[in-house]
């Protein structure tokens, strides 16, 4: 094992599967809910809502950690388009269950978990390496060394 890996901190959380599967990628974290229709650009997976803290940043290929969905009933359709365009997140972790986020996660078809036994907003920072094993209901966070 390299010295760098030895110095990394690993945290494991347990939760409930929303959509099965396993993915490992860099985290993108926001404490603000995200709008689908009118809130994201499905062509590049970026957040476009005017005053959103992720405005201009893309969730494509990232583990998106957020409270959940808000806004129009077009939420699932826009995340669905992200999947078709190859701009969907690699996995999703959310905290507030609604029909919008549940259907959205299902049609985005990426590993998704909720109801974690620790606060993801306290424990995960953007840039952390996160593995979501939704079938096992686990989230493994690797903190960079230092």
């Amino acid at each position, binding site marked *: 094992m390299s010295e760098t890996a030895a110095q990394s901190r690993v945290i494991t959380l347990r939760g409930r599967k929303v*959509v099965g599967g396993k993915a490992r990628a860099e985290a993108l974290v926001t404490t603000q809910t995200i709008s689908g229709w009118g809130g994201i650009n499905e062509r590049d997976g970026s957040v476009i*809502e005017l005053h959103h803290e992720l405005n201009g940043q893309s969730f494509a290929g990232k583990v998106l950690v957020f409270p959940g969905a808000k806004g129009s009933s077009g939420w699932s*359709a826009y995340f669905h388009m992200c999947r078709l365009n190859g701009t969907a997140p690699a996995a999703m972790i959310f905290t507030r269950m*609604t029909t*919008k986020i549940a259907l959205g*996660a*299902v*049609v985005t078809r990426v590993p998704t978990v909720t109801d974690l036994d620790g606060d993801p907003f306290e424990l995960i920072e953007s840039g952390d390496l996160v593995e979501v094993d939704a079938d096992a209901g686990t989230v493994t966070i690797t903190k960079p060394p230092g």
Partner: protein
Amino acid sequence: MQLTDTEKAMRDGSNGPAVARSMDLLIRYGEALGAERLVETRNVAGAYNASTPSVRSLAEEGFGRVFSELNLDSDEVVEVPRMAVPTCQLITGIDLDNHELQGADPALVEMQRAGEKYLGKRGVNMMCTCTPYQVGNVPVQGEHCAWMESSAVIYCNSVLGARTNVEGKESTGAAGLTGRIPYWGLHRHENRLANRLIRVETEVNDMADWGVLGYFTGFEVEENNPAFEGLTYLPDLMKLKHFGAAAASSGGVEMYHMPGITPEAPTMDAAFGGTARPEAIVFGEAEKRRTWARLQNATDRKLDFVMLGCPHNSIEQMSLVAELLEGRKIHPDTALWVHTPRAIRQIADRSGYTDIIRAAGGEVMSDTCPSISRRMPEGVRVIATDSAKQAHYLPAIGKVQGWFGSVQQCVDSAVAGEWLGVVQ
């Protein structure tokens, strides 16, 4: 999730591949929610149309491909049979009679026309409005529905006492073909009770007041169920339509109670189901002024475009716009579009309202709105609207400045060519 024998048979293909794909999606969706079972519905309102550039490449492979992918989440292209239960189309992206004014791409107009034929053959009722409850789809109290469109969902639950969550494009496709939707959220009585209290301490009477109260409510309660006390004027369909659309835009409100007015709250105690009432959130003169100011996203007074009819206007609102415009001329540099469901437009035409609005230089539009179509007259920089919902969305979507005011202020400003509303 528990399934009945009929539902298991549908899943296993007894009613063909499209129904099997529908049931597969509903099971995945229900399990994601943590629902125990599905519930039967005979009232579905969804978005099945293909009128946006992003759908074009799918539509080139046929409308079966569009429906399979976007309404059933099915990779496999399945033959879509007739809807199993009454199903209607909500708002679309193109007004088929005014697409030139909208500046819509003729290829997309043809795609929309062909798509409507495909859907009509399958029993999708082409209401083409965000307000199906204005044109004949009026569920009864307690009826389980599967509706999209946040402004329609809040009206369906709160004003009509029917039961629906905010559904999506895929779940309404599957619901139309199976007559099922997850039994979760607002389908269950205990989730319909009030859990927030708003005390109104200022006059809420005209349309603009109701919009402002709704916009305030969404920010304050987010996705919770508010009950209201202190209302002194009885609202009507138009006011509750405007109020609910605003509350569903600034927050995610899907259910509210006005004791003595809405059907599930004969009393305040009934609204809370006997549970303790939380501390009241006050809506007074200061809150009204602050919320009014929050709806103004403009600085320039020279006005390019006035948008009326979000959610789509009732016939009474069409009559009022005609009355306000009679014998007047809209400023040549300003456009005015009034939006109403096509079925109501027929009544407006017959009553002479459309002619009056057009003689003044305005246009009557149906099927769509600028936020959904993303189309406005060319070169628009500053807009005004009497809708809190449109004032919330259009500046962000259309990258324009937006004023909010009463219908009278909007019409007078369209005639003057500049915003005459109050800046508080």
